[in-house]
């Protein structure tokens, strides 16, 4: 029996086949925010603008990447035994903001290069007996 797919954090991304991060947009200045942890538009002078929920670009350019070879402290939920994992930072195409995420499972970090096109996918962050807790991850766009 397959486990239930549950977002590791509620309301931060869509769960469809072409997942997108969910942010906020200040339509007057044209700037966006992710995550949605803003009280007002942080563009100085635009604190009067009502922010609207928006789905962010699911593609961008690789800003940088690194592979962690040591187990991080809590609250990271690590597989046992620990497995090295890669973190990528990607500049979103339209929003021109950099968002970090883990590299999708099965992608060889040796194949990465700063500047290459990337896309957002969902992948397992950790799991228990019933649920598969998913989070956004990055992978290269197949050439």
């Amino acid at each position, binding site marked *: 029996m397959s486990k239930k797919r549950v977002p*590791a*954090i509620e309301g931060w991304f869509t769960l469809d086949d072409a997942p997108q991060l969910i942010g906020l947009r*200040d339509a007057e*200045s*044209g*700037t*966006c*925010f*992710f*995550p949605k*942890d803003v009280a007002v538009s*942080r*563009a*100085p002078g635009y604190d009067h603008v009502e922010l609207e929920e928006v789905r962010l670009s699911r593609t961008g350019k690789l*800003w*940088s*990447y*690194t*592979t*962690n*070879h*040591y187990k*991080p*402290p*809590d*609250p*990271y*939920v*690590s597989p046992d035994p620990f497995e090295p*994992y890669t*973190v990528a*930072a990607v*500049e*979103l195409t*339209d*929003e*021109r*903001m*950099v*968002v*970090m*995420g*883990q590299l999708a499972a099965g992608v060889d*970090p040796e194949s990465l*290069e*700063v*500047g290459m096109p990337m896309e957002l996918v969902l992948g397992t*962050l950790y799991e228990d007996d019933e649920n598969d807790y998913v*989070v956004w991850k990055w992978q290269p766009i197949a050439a």
Partner: protein
Amino acid sequence: MSNEVAILGVGMHPWGKWGRNFVEYGVHAMKAALADAQLDWKQVEFVAGGDTMRNGYPGYVAGGTFAKAMGWTGIPVSSNYAACATGSQALEAARTRILAGMCDVAIVVGADTTPKGFLAPNKGERALDPDWLRFRLLGATNPTYFGLYARRRVDLYGATEQDFAQVKAKNSRHGFKNPNARYKKIFTEEEVLESAMVADPLRLLEICATSDGGAAIVVSSLEFAKKHGAARAPRIAAISTVTPTFPDTYIDMPAFSTDSAAGLPSPDRGFRDSIAHAAYEEAGIGPEDLSLAEVYDLSSALELDWYENIGLCKPGQAERLLRDGDTSVGGRIPVNASGGLGCFGEAVPAQALAQVCELTWQLRGEAGERQVEGARIGITANQGLFGHGSSVIVKSS
């Protein structure tokens, strides 16, 4: 009118993993700084403490904690926290008080006792705290960010693992006889490259440890310095405590996303560049006037970023500066003559003050084997979590 204040005395408790009460290190440093200044604690009119977040309540109100430990004298106090930039904030509190004419002599002090291992977020389920979320959702440790910056240098500028190892080896040569350094050992590039990979392309010996330590500085008005027979004391010519300008699109701890540059135009200068720039503007000098620099080598590769951020060279040229020996003691513009964080590890609230202590000793010609000949002007640069710039320019009088 000049914004200058005099540095009458500096003192440190050696860095290490001593495991004692942080107050002890702070008091040790204060006594050393007062002795260096030839002043008595009772002559001090203001105390600015740098807070520590890892030692309970006394750490959150460090100014009062240190004042009590030295013996209450009724003077006003301030306690300051700005992560790695804490020391500069405390120094700025003292400087502005002096420049406002509210006191003549102030002491600034920071000290820390640190736990082992990775710096971890506070305990509990804290889904609104980005510092908690970055560990939970991404496993983004501090070395993860250092790894991202280092990888950019490799892919964009052709930096090599050898270059990063060379930074560590250089700083180990600078610091191995520094009496206040924790790691007094010369590392070769080969030894660095044999250490375990932590956050690719950075290895264990290239990533800053956390240390215990304490540093203190006695500052005064120029008038007081003159009366005190210290007219030739080094002076603080500038303190920069700038914050970023929106939109800031450089990924920085503990955030896992940046501002968006899709709306408002990006500032002329990125945040890291703006830190030293503000200090240069205030002091009325430029990078070409420097004798030496103390920058925050949280990782070996990050030191190379700072060369560019403080204007020693253009983006992409830091490796050349390093390879040519320009940033070694004896070179054109020595960087981290103290040994830097590579030899010290980080004692957060004391570290920015320790950088200023080093410049003071260098400008007084008292730095022993790591002395930069004829040092007249130095700059410190670092950055505290959540957008705290920190840069101090010290010059000879």
